[in-house]
């Protein structure tokens, strides 16, 4: 642990009754860093965030913030949520409908017995920072979804918590606004040098917003790393599958040569790829290639396979081709409309992973 570490979660476990949700999760968040908790629903990512916040009750492990233990099962430490000094932006924003925007943001300061004049100036500053200065006297129901989100962030930041937690911050915005809000939020976090832990189920959101991603699966961390590492060098099939759009071909290993393996898919289809597991010759494996890494080609060649192009779909910025290779349905992207018929598909060996 370096002194830059602000949040440490160590071997945290949590169950609902006899149903384990977190099975020993460890992670660190460094000062000024954005870490995303990514995973499918039921993976425990929201539970982990809520356990850090003090809203869920773990039964094992520890959580430390800025060197202060806020939860430690062994030492019987469990600081209640209100004493953890964390900021949480709720998925639903959770603005108090009976308080104005000003009062919503002021409430944390009122609780901290800050002087009235100082409250007014700090709240105004926070609202101004988020472009909400003119809305101070409104009630939450008079605001748009995006404005409500900003108020929620202002409320979580106004008392300068060392770490800010965001639970699916963009999921309540409509698709169009989401991309803008993503950029805005990343900009805000970087500019204010916040340390943030973000829960999301959307891998592109996680990659865009964070310095590091923790991918959870079934209550354990499957893999963690920078967005580039997560996308380009997945350690397991689950990670490869979750982080991008793939062509997945089940087959058997026919030959192994160093770090590469030849996979026999059947129907005369054989691919070279990077070994990602210690499966031996003859064992069943999956060959996985990102959709954007495979290319249509006009003629036969090395690492090319003959396939049937069934149809082309126009997606706006590109075409997607639907292809048949034996019983497998494959996809590839390109810039031109292609007529149906026989084509060749190129699988570059360094873009094929064998799990």
């Amino acid at each position: 642990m370096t002194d830059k570490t602000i949040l440490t979660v160590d071997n945290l476990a949590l169950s609902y009754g006899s149903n384990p949700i977190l099975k020993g999760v460890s992670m660190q968040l460094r000062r000024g860093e954005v870490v995303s908790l990514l995973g499918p629903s039921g993976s425990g990512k929201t539970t982990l965030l809520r356990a850090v916040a003090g809203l869920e009750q773990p039964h094992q492990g520890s959580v430390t913030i800025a060197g202060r233990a806020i939860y430690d099962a062994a030492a019987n430490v469990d600081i209640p949520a209100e004493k953890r000094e964390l900021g949480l932006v709720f998925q639903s924003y959770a603005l108090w409908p009976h308080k104005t925007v000003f009062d919503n943001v002021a409430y944390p300061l009122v609780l901290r017995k800050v002087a009235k004049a100082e409250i007014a100036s700090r709240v105004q500053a926070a609202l101004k920072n988020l472009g909400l200065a003119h809305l101070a006297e409104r009630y939450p129901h008079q605001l748009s979804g995006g404005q409500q989100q900003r108020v929620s962030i202002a409320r979580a930041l106004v008392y300068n918590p060392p770490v800010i937690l965001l639970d699916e911050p963009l999921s309540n915005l409509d698709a169009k606004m989401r991309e803008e809000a993503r950029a805005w939020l990343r900009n805000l976090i970087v500019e204010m040098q916040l340390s943030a832990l973000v829960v999301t189920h959307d891998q592109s959101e996680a990659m865009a917003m964070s310095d590091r991603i923790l991918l959870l699966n079934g209550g354990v961390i499957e893999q963690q790393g920078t967005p580039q590492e997560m996308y380009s060098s997945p350690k397991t099939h689950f990670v490869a599958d979750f982080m991008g759009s793939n062509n997945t071909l089940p087959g058997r290993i026919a030959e192994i040569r160093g770090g590469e393996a030849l996979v026999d898919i059947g129907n005369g289809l054989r691919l070279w790829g990077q070994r990602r597991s210690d499966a031996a010759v003859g064992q069943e494996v999956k060959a996985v290639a990102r959709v954007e890494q495979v290319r249509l080609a006009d003629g036969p060649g090395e690492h090319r396979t003959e396939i049937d192009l069934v149809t082309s779909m126009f997606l706006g910025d590109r075409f997607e081709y639907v292809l048949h290779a034996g019983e497998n349905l494959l996809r590839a992207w390109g810039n031109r409309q292609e007529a149906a018929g026989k084509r060749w598909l190129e699988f570059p060996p360094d873009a094929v992973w064998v799990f």
Partner: protein
Amino acid sequence: MLQTLPRRAVVTLLALSVFFPLGLVIYQSVLSGPFFMKTASLSLESFAFIFDDPDFWMAAKNTIFIAVGMSLIAIPLGAILAFIMVRTDLPGRRWLETPILIPIFVSPVVIGFGYVVALGPVGFFSVWFESIFGSVPWNIYSLFAIVVIAGLTHVPHVYLYSSSALRNLGSDVEEAARLSGASPFRVARDVSIPMVSPALLYVGVLVFFLGFEIFGLPLILGDPEGHLVLTTYLYKLTNKLGTPSYHLMAAVATCIIAVTFPLVLLQRFLLKSAQRFVSVKGKSARQRPLALGGWKWLALALIALWLFLTVFVPVAGVALRSVVSSWGAGVNLLEVLTLDHFHAVFEESTMIRSIINSILIGTLGGAVAVGGYLLIGLATHRQPDGLSRFVDYVVLTPRAVPGLMAGLAVFWVFLFVPFLAPLRSTLFSVWFAYAVVWLAYGMRLIQSALMQVGPELEEAGRLVGASRSRVSRDITVPLIRNGLLGSWLLIFMIFEREYSTGVYLLSPGTEVIGAQIVSLWASGAVDVVAALSLINMLLVGVGLALALRFGVKLHD
């Protein structure tokens, strides 16, 4: 949400308030005499005595007959009423909802009295009917009449539960059945009815169990021909042996609880399984009403007839009786009109006190009760642990104890506990009994208000640094203000309506209208009873008008 310490204090006080009186009843039932007598020893002779008494068995038989009979009348009628009101395009549905619920808020003793003066041997309607047709085909004092009246007046209970179940049912499940090829009749038979059957089963148990608790109707209608039920048998025991026969009363009470408590638990179980059944909520609840066509006249006639018999007849009877000096065959209504009964009421200090006390207990007492229920609600709010589950059962327990017996038990508590004794003849004892008797009802109101508050609103409060009690004060309670106002108005009406709970607590200074009517009825002061009954209904009416004015939902 409350901190640990106040939470434990609230729960302890609650458990004491519920279990101490109840425990006292059970303890008293196994004594050979009243608990304050030195000679009383542990024995089962009180049970031996009542089991030996043919009146007890008659009362038990009548009780079961009434409970079964009224269920058979109330459940089909209530379900049909709910179907017509919720699923069809009956004209004027919105205006009919409130009148349908009126019987819930009128004191059964007032309703019983209304039937006597309207349909009794010399009742208004009987006399008019006789002068036209020559004779009256009904006998209001027969057991059969009691069953019919009890059945009709419990229709609103069935209506409440089945209508909310039908409302929760989205049209989409029915439309899916239609598209699969089912006729509207098949849809109702195969989809709609089975989907609300858990609610019907639940309300069936509820009505059956209310049948075990009814007191006012059989007290007034069963007396002339000597039809006893368990509660009236208990009431008559007061004077049976000359000396206070507390041990016998406790034995009867224990017998009633032995039946009602399992029914309460059964209800709770059914409610839980019913909730599992309700899969439909939110958007899909949009409904397309069934077109009644020519049948709407029949439906309207059915509702009108029921309203006439159940609301108009007794209410008009009471109203009319309170302004005539006497009534019988050949009497001209215009010649006997008088306000003397009201003068009589307002000239006697006991009567005035009973009215003032009733208003006090409804307004101030209602507010304090809602405050207490709120504290209990906050003690368990979003803290799903053992203590909360315990509170769940504690809250349910008083439901199994009819008001008459709860009042008796509270009376004993105030006799038994030395430091409480001075409070016995104050309004506090009555308020305490009322608050305990209506605990389950009040908690339902409070809990449904609390459930409206999104959990994340409270969690957000915790995160920014507010303690549990601070969150309750600054976020939860302000957010349910309207719910609290509504609960207060409903509790006001219920407290005005209440009559049996105050019967044993009646003493100079603790008079309330309901108990006063029961006591005056025994002395035959019909004129004053009529005037007090009307005043009682007016008080409830004021509460109802306010509730409607503020848009309070009369049901959840």
